[in-house]
């Protein structure tokens, strides 16, 4: 992932973006309200808003929207936490030693490009249809990019910086704690952003098999009953959450890593 494309947003640029969103909403309203497009294909903004409100008030199929959201986010963040706890330590070790890296490299290089749904079938076979396989799928999606970013970030720590610390009397352990970790951290966080992006993209797939809750399941279920309005609500919510999560991390990056690249 990267920052929003338009970096330094002038008033004019912001205005144009705003106008563009407005135009899309207008076009949508026109197309759907005037019935130029069938409402199963394109529900009216009003009906989407109405569905959104009723989702907030009544929930979806007996489960509140918050519960759906938290079910999804729980899966997502459990997987990410597991990935953090495994990919980062392993990545740091592999960044240190190219020999240890050589052991894990072929495995990760092989599974990384695989479509997650391809091995989801196996995961369901191994772990059953419950949360286990869902979290495992998300974990595997999260692991590879985070591991790779961590390895690269450790490999990228300038030798001069390490040498500098050594001549100042730092022990190997201190070099690790006071030099390697803080040097690698910004890149690891950037890797985390990529990782979250990729994992997020797998979220709906993970809720495809035998889920009974989750925002992804909601969208899939609604589509079975041709509830395009709810599909739209779900998609909009998912888009906004993704942007929100990324913004929070970016905000943290700006705050904590003002020194990077300068």
């Amino acid at each position, binding site marked *: 992932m990267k920052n929003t494309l338009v970096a330094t947003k002038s008033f004019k640029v912001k205005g144009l973006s705003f106008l563009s969103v407005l135009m899309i909403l207008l076009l949508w309203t026109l197309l759907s309200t005037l019935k130029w497009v*069938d*409402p*199963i*294909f394109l529900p009216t903004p009003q009906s989407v808003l109405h*569905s959104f409100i009723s989702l907030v008030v*009544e929930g*979806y*199929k*007996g489960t509140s929207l918050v519960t759906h959201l938290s079910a999804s986010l729980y899966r997502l963040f459990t997987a990410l936490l597991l990935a953090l706890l495994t990919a980062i330590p392993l990545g740091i070790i592999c960044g240190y030693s190219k020999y240890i890296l050589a052991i894990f490299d072929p495995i990760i290089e092989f599974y990384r490009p695989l479509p997650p749904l391809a091995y989801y079938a196996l995961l*369901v*076979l191994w772990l*059953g*249809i*419950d949360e286990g396989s869902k979290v495992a799928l998300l974990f595997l999606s999260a692991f590879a990019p985070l591991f790779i970013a961590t390895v690269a970030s450790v490999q990228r720590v300038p030798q001069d910086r390490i040498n500098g610390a050594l001549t100042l009397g730092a022990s190997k352990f201190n070099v690790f704690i006071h030099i390697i970790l803080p040097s690698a951290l910004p890149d690891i966080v950037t890797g985390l952003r990529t990782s979250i992006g990729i994992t997020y993209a797998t979220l709906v797939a993970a809720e495809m*098999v*035998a889920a*009974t809750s989750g925002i992804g399941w909601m969208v899939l*279920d609604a*589509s*079975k*009953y*041709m*509830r395009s*309005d709810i599909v739209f609500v779900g998609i909009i919510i998912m888009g906004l959450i993704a942007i929100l999560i990324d913004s929070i991390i970016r905000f943290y990056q700006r705050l904590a890593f003002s020194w990077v690249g300068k």
Partner: protein
Amino acid sequence: TSGSENDVPKEIRLGYQASPNGELLAKARGSLEKKYPETQIKWIKFESGRDINNAIAGGSIDFGLVGTPPGAIGVANKLPYKVYYLHDIIGESEALVVKKGADIKSLEDLKGKKIATTFSSTAHYSLLSALKNKNIDLKKENITLLDMQSPDILAAWNRGDIDGAYVWQPLQTNLIHADGNVLISSKEVAKQGSITGEFGIVHEDFAKKYPNIVKGYISILNESVNYYHKNPEKSAELLAKELNLTPKQSLKTMQQLTWLNKSDQKAYFQSNGKLAHVLKDTGDFLEAQKDIPSSPDLKTYQQALLNNFSK
């Protein structure tokens, strides 16, 4: 613009389900291919009615077969199709099969269990109706309903992920053979008032453009049902391949639903006929389940029927 009498399309695309009924027999016998040799006949298999709804909405097929619930959903959503033929009324061919070891003797024993079914299908509808008739609340009894298609249900069953499944044929037979017991079938649920059936739908544009093809296909289906009544063993043998069952098993499944020929259709299609009422009941039930935002009035369902039979 409606087409002329002799208009024949280059291609007819049919979305079918492996249900042991007249359409599957017509497919097995190649009747349509024989009747329209100049036309390319494309049979596309679907696992359930909801996918057929999607396919017809996107214009990917001309004909389809759906159960009453997906049909009601389609009508409620004003999908561009018409119902042209009621293939069958579902009896024992759809049933709740439970694992022998799961210690389930009655619907009440489902408490805390995991049951799979294909959501928005006839089976789902029958399951929910059965539970409702017994006043069993899913939430209170902590019953988990899982949405799966037939092949996934089989895999989940074999792995022991689920305790039971409300399924149709041929899967039902497979589950029974894999240590399953039938707890309740759609025949009983129908007796309680929740009738399910499977009917044919045709895309509006196609029906307008090729009314004669629709009529022609109806006569094929009629002929197919009659053939079955006359030659059940031979028919069972033909369907055995499609269902991937033995001929004996096939025959049994065929007998588990009521096949309807052309003369049987009148009662369902004529003004104020049964089918519109069944659809209306189904739609209202779905509305109560919050599956659809609102069920339209009876007239809307009636208008969705292509009345070829009252004349």
